[in-house]
């Protein structure tokens, strides 16, 4: 089975056996999602690329000892949150950049994507942290309820309840 068709678990197993291409495939599969999440979480979203790179470097060092108690994406997601929190703590003491660098989008949709990103940031900014996570993963990243629950470390029912509360708040914001 080609790396592109293999599951995350299988890619990690291949990487643990020394297949570097399997790790490349894992990076290509999750880099966009983690990059977007980092763009939302980071105070200075221009550092999203650095954060994503750091997540995968930690994965490179940590996945050889991965024991499959969770999904690889859950591991990557939590590492990404950790990295972004660390960067945000550092950034509070540094001046913010005035100009945003271009993201990895094409010229046609770059402006729309940046606009949407700013919209998403403003929408979730006022939500409580848990609801913010649910909205980002379930609505904007289109993760399944199960994936969202595993990433957040809670039950699927909790995800649904948080999502309902968040929708009510978001409806108020969108109707303003």
């Amino acid at each position, binding site marked *: 089975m080609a790396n592109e068709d293999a599951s995350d678990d299988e890619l990690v197993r291949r990487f643990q056996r020394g297949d570097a291409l399997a790790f*490349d495939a894992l990076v290509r599969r999750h880099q966009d999602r983690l990059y977007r999440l980092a763009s939302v979480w980071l105070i200075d979203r221009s550092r999203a690329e650095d954060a994503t790179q750091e997540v995968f470097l930690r994965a490179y060092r940590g996945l050889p000892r991965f024991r499959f108690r969770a999904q690889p994406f859950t591991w990557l997601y939590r590492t990404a949150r950790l990295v972004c929190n660390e960067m945000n703590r550092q950034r509070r003491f540094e001046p913010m950049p005035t100009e945003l660098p271009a993201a*990895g989008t094409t010229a046609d949709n770059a402006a729309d994507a940046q606009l949407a990103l700013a919209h998403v940031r403003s929408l979730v900014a006022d939500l409580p942290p848990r609801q913010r996570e649910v909205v980002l993963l379930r609505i904007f990243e289109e993760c399944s309820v199960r994936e969202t629950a595993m990433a957040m470390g809670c039950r699927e029912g909790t995800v649904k309840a948080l999502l309902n509360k968040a929708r009510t708040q978001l409806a108020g914001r969108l*109707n303003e």
Partner: protein
Amino acid sequence: MTDVDQDLDAIGRQYRQLKAPPTLAAQVRDGAAKTARPPAFGLAVGLAAGVVASVTAVLTVALWMQPDKASIPTMTEIARAMPERPNVSVPGLGNIRLPDRPALPKPEQPPLDDNNLPPATDEAGTTALPSTDAKEKNA
């Protein structure tokens, strides 16, 4: 689907157009290659750390146990502390017990004679003078 859901869906579609820079995978690969160490690297680092720790521990103990000058015994104290008849180990002969140290001579005392007799005391505690009768008897 409600209006809110449609709005969120539209925003989400645009948001998902945001992609990671195409160079990111290559950068991760380069970074990972730099991160990778030869297998012996960890062993070498561990050994070096172990040697440094051992030397530090030995030096610390040695410095801690070093006697200060005030506690070094003098030769006289050593001589006093030595046993009277020490055992000496001689190669081929085994332990040899040294002879007793000769006793120091006692200070000479004048021989006792009548003139040097200590004064006798009677029951009342008074010193009695030597009797002249006794001198005559001896003569």
